[in-house]
């Protein structure tokens, strides 16, 4: 079992998201995250999907997606260079002054930002890889008493000349 990524171009129509997610539930594929938004062509949406599967199932998932009438193109991102980011908000509550200082330090180290602040709380916004966001959440969980996490799922685009993932 391995985590893999797919980019999917689909018709921007009512019901297509339900159809794609229904395939995953109907065939017992393990869907980890799915993001969707329109592209430069407003009749086309692009999805970034992550799944956990073995090789055989992953091949099957790609084929099943490909045969859907509403799916325009399936791109396997597993072995290509991509830029991938995930939006993450962490609201930290019941903070002391010292903890507020700590929140700024953590944000700085992670290249995240403190975007909002109150008497005893603040919000960190982060646009990092899913992996880095996981680390940021883990750290905040350790350091602060109460946090609230909202994350958006990853979006990815194929690299031009860099080899980062």
């Amino acid at each position: 079992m391995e985590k893999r990524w797919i980019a999917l171009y689909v018709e921007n129509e009512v019901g297509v998201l339900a159809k794609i997610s229904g395939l995953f539930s109907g065939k017992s594929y393990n869907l980890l995250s799915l993001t969707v938004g329109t592209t430069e062509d407003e009749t086309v949406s692009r999805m970034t999907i992550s799944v956990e599967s073995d090789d055989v199932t992953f091949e099957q998932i790609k084929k099943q997606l490909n045969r859907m009438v509403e799916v325009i193109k399936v791109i396997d991102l597993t072995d290509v260079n991509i830029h991938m980011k995930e939006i993450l908000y962490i609201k930290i509550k019941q903070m002391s002054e010292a903890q507020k200082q700590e929140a700024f330090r953590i944000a700085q180290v992670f290249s995240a930002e403190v975007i909002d602040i109150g008497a005893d709380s603040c919000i960190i916004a982060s646009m990092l890889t899913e992996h880095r966001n996981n680390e940021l959440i883990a750290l905040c969980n350790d350091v602060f008493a109460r946090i609230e996490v909202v994350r958006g799922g990853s979006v990815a685009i194929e690299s031009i000349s860099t080899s980062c993932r």
Partner: protein
Amino acid sequence: MDIAGKNLFVKALKNEGVDTIFAYPGGVITDLLDEIEKDGSIRIVLPRHEQALVHEAEGYARATGKVGVCLVTSGPGATNTVTAITDAFLDSIPIVCFTGQVSLPLIGNDAFQEVDTIGISRNITKWGITVRRREDMGHIIKEAFYVAKTGKPGPVIIDLPKDIQVSSGDSEYPSEVNIRGYKPNEGVHVGQLKKAWKTLKNAERPIILAGGGVNNARADEELTAFAEKTGVPVVTTVMGRGAIPTSHPLYFGNAGMHGAYACNLAIKECDVLFSIGTRFNDRITGDLNDFAPNAQIVHIDIDSASISRNVVVNVPVVSDAKVALEKLNEWAAKINTEDWIKEIKAWDSEYPLEMPNDVGLTPQAIMRGINEVFHESFITTDVGQHQMWAAQFIELDKKRHMITSGGLGTMGFGFPAAIGAKVGLPDTPVICVTGDGSFQMNLQEMATANTEDTPVVICLLNNEVLGMVRQMQNLFYGKRYVATDLKKADDAYVPDFMKLAEAYGAKGIRVTQREEIIPALKEAAENTDSCTLVEFMIDKDEVVLPMVKGGNSTSDMIL
């Protein structure tokens, strides 16, 4: 000039060459039916239930090779089609089903007979869409027919809101289709196919496994030619039966759960399994670890997603069966299979496909009676023991064809499918082989057969039990017969099918003796004024053999 949606609907049907529509009326499709009737060129077949309606369209499609077209109302009209639409999906039958829908502003209000038809059917259709703008109606219908019949065929649902049907718009019906996400495979990768041929050519113990894809592609002549040119023996799935005449010296029968001993053994022992148009369903393979364990597997299928899903194959070829076989026939040459065929024949004579105790009114004698009396015909079956006996013993060729529910195994399929086949081919005898369990799932269609003048012959094997499940209880559950008796022990007939036949204006013949089989079938064949229901009173302890227990290796057969 602009026209109403309902007029474009009729124009579209005529453009697609639709001559018959299976329709059940209701609140939101009355406009459409009214327009069809005004036009007058399309036959409307009115069934008694929407599930049967779609089965009728399936039978029509399978018999004629055309798309089966359905029209049902919103709400229960649409939900009643679900089982039959799924049946068409699993057996790759081209169906376009129009469902009425409440007007767009009412959607989401829990309006009367409002249901999310496309949502319900999303996982059981090849494609489905609600027409939300009048200007999209023409191209959506065009695309629906194209998607239903090309590639791996299947059912498509077009949901038509009431207000779209009556709103005015462009009168053009497009002549071209261009769906950017749907480009069905029309050719064949010659390099892959050459590899497939090379693999077969070098085999010593090759076998061809033909599935329903060969029949769907109407490639029986090409398959027979290929087998004859190469001398490679052929076995089929239930859906593939008839892809080569069953009397052909190179044909050995069905493989799988109730397949012939020799066929399952041949798959076990072969060195090349040359499969065409099968998805290696579990009923064919049994335990995957012991399926063709020594073979190089060639897999030709129109659906790339069928390849290397259940069985890992050595040579995948994505192609329509007919296209691939036509090309293969250009290269085909004799392969030395004499010794191998002798071996298969020896297995076959060791355990031939014969009922062990063929005395009295046996299923085997009934099936052979059908072979004797009906030559050019379409034979539909329902689902259960009778289906397997039909698949084992009914002889098929260029003239005698079989239509059965293989993928979904839908009880209640056979009789409406027979009516649909008869609608499509009124001059061809159509026989429905059914059981008392299956028949009672759609027997209301006796009324449809009456009013639509579709005199089909119903061969009902009555054992007063749900035989296939009872057989499992007999063999694997210590003869504890739970919920499989269809009547109380001291009752005579429940129902009395003879009275039922009479009630629907059909002819009833009850057969209790072996000698009565042929005269009864001949009498049925001669009756073209109404349906003939021939009821065969068979023993409830008859079992379908051989049998492979679900999940076991197919070489591990109860004989």
